[in-house]
């Protein structure tokens, strides 16, 4: 039983690490700020969730698991807010998405 839980938590942790790695590769490969933010959100979402899930399996049914779940909820609530602040600041500073289809009536 303990071994099965260990295997499960390792699968979750390695899966999370994989998504963090792919997110990092994406940030390097994609062409501009806006497209790179899409890659970074892999790290924010499944990467984080799988790693927290893996640590929760290790912690079992304890207060530590409740705290980890709360951390996951807070990250999922604040992550997109920070991303929005970054994207909005870039747009207001006049950085336009490269090679993107824009709505016609948007002032260039």
């Amino acid at each position, binding site marked *: 039983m303990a071994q099965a839980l260990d295997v499960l938590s390792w699968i979750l942790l390695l899966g999370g690490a994989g*998504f963090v790695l*792919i*997110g990092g*590769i*994406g940030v390097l*490969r*994609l*062409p*501009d700020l*806006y*497209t790179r*933010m*899409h*890659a970074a*959100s*892999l790290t*924010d*979402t*499944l990467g984080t*969730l799988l790693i927290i899930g893996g640590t929760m399996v290790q912690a079992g049914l304890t*207060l530590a698991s409740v*705290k980890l779940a*709360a951390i996951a909820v807070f990250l*999922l*609530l604040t*992550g*997109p*807010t920070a*991303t*929005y602040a970054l*994207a*909005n600041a*870039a*747009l207001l500073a006049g950085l336009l*998405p*490269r*090679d*993107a*289809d*824009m*709505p016609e009536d*948007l002032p260039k």
Partner: protein
Amino acid sequence: MARMLLSTEPIMRILLTLLLWFLAWLLWSGMYKPLLLGLGVLSCLLVLVLSLRMGFFRQDVFSLHLVWRLLPFWGWLGKELIVANLQIARIVMSRRPAISPTVIKLDALSPDPVGQAILGNSITLTPGTVTVDDHEGELLVHCLTRELAESLQEGEMNRRVAALGKD
């Protein structure tokens, strides 16, 4: 500050919120020494000052029925998250990433600011789509591919978020 508090803010709600914050502090900390309890009280008061400055207590932001509807919505969003994560991971790792960046305007079906914030954040949370602006319910969304933009315009997420706020 004191005058503003007495004249316009609902005292009972503020006291109840303070109590909840302090209980949360006790739960997270788990240590009951005078120093840590004092720091907890100070933190709660500091958060109260910031919330008052934000006008947090002047509008009904959280109601209980929203919380109950959020749980099934989060379940649906979680499924969307997994699908989108795999999709973007495949694009990133392909030999020549097939991207067609597209910016679209999306009219939020939800009339209130909280619903629009939930919609904007849900869009951003899903990999492949990022909300870059919200002007009075008109969201500007940057999508990594044209297909993602089209599926967003079909509006399932928009409808689900709007349904959260219906009475």
